[in-house]
Structures are given as C-alpha cells and as structure tokens.
C-alpha cells in the first residue's frame, strides 16, 4: 500500500529559523547568559557554597510551583497557593507551640487541612463553576484572613528541635533541597507517565475535546486543585522550617511569584503545554539566580521586583508568540521523532 505524500518541505528562511529557535529555547539562552555574566562579574557567585544556598532558598518555590503547574496545565489558575502555604504552616506551628502536638501528628493534620482547602477550591471551580481566577482570589483573601486571625498577626517561633531540621544536610546539600527535587521528579513522573497527568494535558488542549474522548474532565480538574493545595501546604511547611518561625509575611505575594515561575518555565497559561522538568525547575532557578546574583553584585535590592516583572512580561510575550506561531505541518517523511513531554 502506498500512502506517501510528497508535500514540498517548507524551506524556512534563516531569520524565521532563528526566531523559532529563540522562541523554543529563549529562556535557556537567557539562563546561560545570566550565569555567564554573574560568574564573570561576581567571583563568589559560582562557588559550590553559593549554589547550595541557592538551591536551599529555591526549595519552597520548587514545591509550590510543581503543584500550581498541574492546575495551569489544564488551562486554569490557582492563586490561593500563597495563602494556603501561610495558613497551613501557621496552624502547624500553633498546634506544636501552643498545644504541644507531636510533630508527626501535626504534619498529618496540616496535610489534611491542605487537602480540605484543595477540595474547597475544586468545589468552587468544578461544581459551582466559578471562574478559577476569582474563586481562588476569594479563597486567597479569606485563608490569609483566617491565618492572620489565628496567629494574631504575630511571629511564632518553632520549637528548637524542629527549627534544627532547617539546617539538616546530607553531605553538604540541604535536606529541603533534596525534598524539593524529589517532589519535582515525582510530579514530573505523574505528568509524563500516568494517565492522570496526561489527562491534565488533554484538558488543557480543550476541555470539550477531552470530554468527547471520554476523559472525566471534572474529576481530573478537581484532583489537580487538591494536589496544588497539598503541595502548597508542603511548600509552606518547608518555608516555616527554613525561617524558623511562622510569620505573617510567609506566602505573601507568593502566588504572583509562582505564576511568574510557571510562565518563565514555559508552561503555557492557555494550558496543554509545558513540563515540570526542565520547565518548572528552570523557572524557579532563573528567578532565584537573578535574585542571588543581584545580591552578589551588590545591586539595589529594591530593583529586584522590577527585574522580576520585566522577566514575566518577556516570558509571557514569548508564550503568546509561541501560541500564535503557525506550526509548519510536517509530512510523514520529514517528521522526526520529537521528544514527547
């Protein structure tokens, strides 16, 4: 049977090829340049001690971004993650400090609360069909209010033995960095290798199409909100242990950083596109490296937020360009096995 087509292979001009290359790998290029620049201009930047502290500082965001990525892959948003991190970690701290709960029991309780919040978000979005943005905006405000009420807006120090966990290292690497990397690997496997993960991507491609193909879109979406909330909880716990105390500033503005990470990591806010590894990891690292490097350069720390905003804007612009890029259809002959994310 001959079913070959002889469509002419489109010959792109060099400029278009360059443009496509930049769009595809833009942030890798940026990352390389930033690394080069810093290592040349700030001699203490490229030391193993600095890299280890960089990974340490990035750990909470890695975990939270991994969770948020699951929701974003379906084309939705969860901006309550910062408040969830704050509320759950505050509750945990209070239970241990004021009520003398056992740390392990506290961990379980806190995770259950994270789960319940995820169910609430899922309920609002999936059952009540409230736009995810506004639904999680509402829970974001309310949960922060609950947290501030519980902590009376004060800083509560963790018990000494828990606080010590924050400096725990394996070899010279901090344990929380390892936990964060483990979370990224696990979520990466969930996204790439489990039916659930692929259904997330399928929903992001188009909810109706996914439903027509027999995917239970409501359940999958619900679960993505639960996971996002759970990982935000875990991220909150890691932050509190790092800081050594539950303070009202935890998780404030974090939802916006997390969305930036997602966008910079190449996870499309239109859904259906993006990866945890290297995507989300890259997003976290770029932001953290820039912050860290600016520190080493002795740059005005106040400039950081501005740089952060500029990066989001560029990342988003690239995202929208990619989304509008006419995909050159390849013919059967010319198609190479492409990497499946």
């Amino acid at each position, binding site marked *: 049977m001959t079913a070959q087509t002889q469509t002419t292979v489109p010959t792109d001009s060099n400029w278009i090829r360059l443009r496509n290359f930049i769009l595809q790998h833009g942030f890798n290029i940026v990352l390389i340049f930033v690394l080069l620049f810093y290592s040349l201009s700030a001699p203490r930047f490229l030391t193993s001690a600095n890299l280890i502290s960089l990974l340490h500082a990035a750990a909470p965001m890695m975990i939270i971004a991994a969770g948020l990525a699951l929701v974003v892959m379906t084309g939705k948003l969860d901006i309550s993650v910062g408040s969830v991190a704050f509320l759950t970690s505050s509750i945990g701290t209070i239970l241990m400090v004021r009520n003398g709960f056992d740390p392990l029991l506290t961990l379980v309780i806190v995770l259950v609360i994270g789960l319940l919040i995820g169910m609430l978000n899922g309920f609002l979005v999936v059952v009540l069909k409230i736009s995810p943005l*506004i639904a999680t*905006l509402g829970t974001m405000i309310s949960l922060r209010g609950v*947290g501030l009420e519980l902590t009376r807006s004060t800083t509560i120090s963790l018990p000494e033995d828990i606080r010590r966990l924050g400096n725990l290292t394996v070899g010279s690497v901090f344990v929380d960095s390892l936990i964060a990397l483990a979370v990224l690997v696990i979520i990466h496997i969930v996204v790439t290798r489990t039916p659930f993960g692929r259904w997330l991507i399928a929903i992001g491609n188009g909810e109706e199409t996914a439903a027509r193909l027999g995917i239970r879109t409501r359940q999958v979406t619900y679960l993505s909100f639960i996971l996002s909330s759970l990982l935000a909880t875990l991220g909150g716990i890691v932050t509190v242990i790092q800081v050594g105390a539950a303070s009202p500033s935890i998780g404030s503005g974090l939802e916006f950083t997390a*969305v930036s990470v997602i966008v910079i990591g190449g996870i499309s806010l239109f859904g259906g596109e993006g990866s945890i590894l290297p995507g989300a990891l890259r997003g976290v690292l770029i932001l953290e490296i820039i912050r860290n490097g600016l520190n080493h350069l002795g740059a005005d720390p106040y400039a950081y937020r501005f740089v952060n905003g500029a990066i989001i804007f560029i990342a988003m612009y690239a995202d929208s360009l990619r989304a509008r890029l006419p995909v050159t259809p390849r013919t059967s002959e010319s198609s190479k096995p492409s990497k499946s994310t």
Partner: protein
Amino acid sequence: MLAENISSKSSDSQSRSLKQWLRQAFTPTRLLDLLPIFILGIVLALLALYVPTFFNSRNIVNIFVQASTLGLMAIGMTAVMVGGGMDLSIPSVMALSAIFGAMRMEAGGSILESCLIMLVVGCVAGCINGYAVAYLKMIPFVVTLAMMTIASGTAIWITNSVSVPVVNEEFFSIILDRIFDIPRPILIMVVMVVIATIAFKRTMIGRWLYAAGTNAKTARVSGIPVDRVIFGTYVLSGFFAGLTAIILSARLGAASANLGNDGVVLDIVSSAVVGGVSIYGGVGSPLGAVLGAIFMTVISNSMNMMQVSFFTGLIIKGIVIITFVAIDSLKKR
C-alpha cells in the same frame, strides 16, 4: 395590519399587567440583583444596634471620602471588566504615578505639571496593557500581573521604599477643599460617575464596549472595531489610576509604593463584583461599581468600629467576593 396586531396584543395584556409586572419584578435574577442591597440593609441595621456612632455625619463623610478613591479605581476596572478583561495593575500604577507626581512637585514642579505627570503615567501604563491584550492577544490577567509587578517594582526601586512627602498647601486645598461642606474628592467621584455613566450608556463607543464584552464575535460581524475598544478600556483604567493618584497623594500628603499594595486590587475587584459588574464581560455600570466601593468601605469601616479584627475582615471580604461571583455564574446559567 402589523400595527393593529401589536396594539390589540397590548390592550389584551392590560388586564394582566399587574401580575406580569410582579412576575417581572421578582424573577430569580431580579432577586439575585437585589441581594447586595439586602445585605447592606442587614449590615446597616446591625450597625444601628451596636455602633450608633457609625451614623454620625463625620463618619459618614469620612466613609465617602475613603470610598471616593476606591470608587474611581473601580470605575476604571468596570470599563475593563465590561470588555471582558481584568486589570490587576491599577493600584500599583496608581502608586507609581503618585510617586512620579510627588517627586516632580518636590523638585519644584508646578501643581498642574505634577498632576499631568500622574495622569500621563497612568495612561502610558494603560496603553502598554491595552496593546498587549487587544493586539498581541495576551491574557489580561497575566499582562496586568506583569504590569503590577513592574510598576510596584519601579515604585519601590526609585523611592527605596521610602515615601515621598507632598507638602504643598495650595495643592491640598485645590484637591481637598469643601464645597457646600462636601469634600472635593466626593464631588470628583460624583462628577466622574455621571460622566462615565453617560460615556458607557449613551456614547457610541460605550455601546460598542458592551457589545464587545457580551460577544466579541457578534460585535466584529457587526462592524465594530473590537480591538480598539478593548485597548481603550485599559487606557481608561490607567487614566483613573492617575486621577486616583492625584487625590490620594493630596489626602495622605505623601506618595509611597505601599499605596498600591496587593490588598487594594482585591478591594477593587470586590467593589466591581459586588456592584454587579460581571467578570464574564458585558454587564455592569460605573454607578454599580461605585456603590460596590461604598459597600466595601462601609464593611471595613463598620468592622473597625465593631472591633472586628482586620483579619476577620479579610475573611468576610473573601466570602463576599466568592458569593457574588457565584451569583454571577448562577445568573449566567
């Protein structure tokens, strides 16, 4: 013959007109529309019982002055939301333009010059947002999120997070003086509500905006320049951010990056949503948004007076937003 048809129908219906009117007045949608007023009634009743001082005229004027800045920003947000978008950058742009204006004034610039700077900064930020959303087809939420980060980043950067004092008695008196015992910010808000209402409901562009927000495809097919209209809404919200900056910098006697903290965005969105502006686009009015702003201010103010903590206030605000959006999506179905 046609005319006869119609008139005979209307005379027919006269006998049942009362019933019809009742049915029309109390459809489920109508009842949902009336809910904010109902809630406001309960809140006011509670206040009358527990905090009689709430109703003294000083406090009332105070509430309206507070609500005026929130209300102006809510009008800008209404334009964007009616067009089906979202502008998270209003407060931070407002803070940034206040800072620019205050710095100019500090450097000896005239009042007019400083005010113009504030308006221009707002409009420029709005142009960038609008261009990205309308022509580059980027997601409004993220565009304005980026603008919010950039504007507040710039604000923090150039001020080193220190507030810029505004000390110009003439400026204060121009902006804040009372006319007939009413502080000018309130009058500015009232004037703006009137102008915006006419612009939204009675001008061609206003009508185009509602059409574009209701169904952009239909609007395009009907020959409406949808992209230009949407672009305009963001410029307008930038303009209102600048206008708010003028009033707020005069009222506070200072401009700082903190003017536009994240909490203000939420207040604006809440005001709009409570005031009946749909997040799905096409529905809402400037007056509604301003009433929403007053509602939100009353709630925070009264909770202060009832000594409910600020944090419980946040919880209540969150619940208010979710409730009203849930109502909105109910109506949509």
